[in-house]
Every structure is written in structure tokens, then in C-alpha cells.
């Protein structure tokens, strides 16, 4: 798990030239030369861990499922629906706004992702 974080950070550092590929979000996307912040959300033991603060539109959200169960991060407004198998790490790009989400398998698992 530690290894995957290091790997992720390493890839990101190497991937400065790849930055334009992530700049899917229009207008507010930061300059391509600037490394994007990565915010990690860890799931374990049937809970979403603490939500990241200071997220800006265009930042990377890394969803890491350390649990033994399959979960999902499903936005209530339908803007994302991320399947998270046990051990999975999935990256998405933050959009501006406040996004309440839940796990569609275990709807008592909830969180709200906020990005400016």
C-alpha cells in the first residue's frame, strides 16, 4: 500500500510532460508545467477515510480500496461512479463543486468531495 503511493507519486513526478493529458477540465486547468496535486481517499473496514481538503479543480483524486470488500464511489448527482474492487487504486480528476457520494453496495458508506 505504501509502495503504491510511492509508485503513484513517482509516476506523477515523471509524468509532468503527461500533464496535458489530465487537463480534461477546461478553463481552470493549471499550467501544464505545474505538477497536479494528488489527494488520496482511503477506504477500509467499511468506511471512506477522511476527505481531502484544499482540492482544486483539475487535481487528481486517488481512490484506494484497502478493504476486503468491493465498494463504489457513486456521486448522488451521477457525475461519477467509480468501481473499487478490493485492493484497487483508481484515479479521477476533480471537478469544481461539492459532490456527495455513497457506495452503491453499502449505501451507509458516504462522503462529500469538495473542490474549488
Amino acid at each position, binding site marked *: 500500500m505504501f509502495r503504491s503511493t510511492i509508485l503513484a507519486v513517482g509516476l506523477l513526478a515523471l509524468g509532468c510532460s503527461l500533464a496535458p493529458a489530465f487537463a480534461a477540465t477546461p478553463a481552470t486547468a493549471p499550467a501544464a508545467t505545474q505538477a497536479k496535486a494528488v489527494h488520496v481517499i482511503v477506504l477500509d*473496514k*467499511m*468506511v471512506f477515510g477522511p476527505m481531502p481538503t484544499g482540492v482544486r479543480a483539475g487535481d487528481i483524486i486517488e481512490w484506494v480500496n484497502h478493504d*476486503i*470488500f*468491493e465498494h463504489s464511489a457513486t456521486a448522488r448527482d451521477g457525475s461519477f461512479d467509480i468501481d473499487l474492487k*478490493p485492493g484497487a487504486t483508481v484515479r479521477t480528476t476533480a471537478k469544481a463543486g461539492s459532490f456527495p457520494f455513497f457506495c452503491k*453496495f*453499502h*449505501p*451507509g*458508506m458516504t462522503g462529500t468531495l469538495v473542490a474549488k
Partner: protein
Amino acid sequence: MNKSVIALVLTLGLGSLASVHAQQAPAAAPAINDAQIAHIAYTAGAIDVTAAKQALSKSHNKAVRQFAEEMARDHAAVNDQALALAKKLGVTPADNGTSQSLAKGAAAEQTKLAALSGAAYDKAYAENEVAFHKAVLAALDGTLIPSTQNAELKSLLETGSKLFHEHEMHAEHLAASLK
């Protein structure tokens, strides 16, 4: 402690469990060890996996099948973890009266469900899942978790409790949607 056992009995309708406990546990709380607790938790999970497999072989309802797939997947995951933990701790899960009563009650329920089909089966399966998860949850929170000595087993059972709670809510939604 007795109250949760009674709740387990009432919800499951397991008369046999009631009599076993009435005989064995008159006043004092029954001493239960981690090997027995692990066996009860494992048995409960295995029962729900078996029920889910039956549902997958019988039901054509999409919502019922999705629910059953979730049950089979989640309970198998906990039970794999429980076996791995037992091995690591050098504990052999020990069969006991509660496990046997659970298994007996589940077998009877499975026979009952086997005789049904279509919407009647779907409804009965969903309702039984509500009752089963409620009963196990009461036993987990009321007796099993407080009695567990090993911290890792306790932590796994606590995760199991959250899981059973989620499944119970899911089962309730499912049962309500089939009315």
C-alpha cells in the same frame, strides 16, 4: 446478553436454539471463547453464502440476483479473512451449540425456500435475509464482539457488524420493493 440471544431466537424463529440456551445458560452469561466465536461468525457467513447461491440458481429478478451476488461476495471475503486470521493465530474454530442451531435453522429455511418459486420465492428470500441479518447483528453486537479476547478477531467482527448492518438495510429495501 440473554436479551440478544432471545432476539436472535425470536427473529430467526429457531425454537431449537431457544431450548439449547434455556438449558445451558440459566442465569450466568455463558463463557464463550474466541475459537467458538470465530466458528459462529464463520457459520453465519457461510449460511448467507449458501442462501445467496440458492437465490442465484432460482431467481430471475435482477434486483434479487444483484443482492445475492453482493451477499456471496462480501460474506466470502469476510470468511476468507477469518480463516486466514485463525490460521495466523493458531486457532481452530470450535463447533458449538450456537453454530449447530444456526446451521440447523438455516437448513430448514433453505428447504422451505426450495419449495417456492418466482415472486413468492423472491419475497420469502428477501424477508428471510432481513431477519437473518438482524438476528446475527444482534448476536454480534450483543454477545460475540463484547466476548472476543483477541484484538484482531474483534476488529474483523466489528467490520463484520458494519457489513451486516449494510446488508440488513439493503435487504429491507429489497423486501419493500418486492411487496
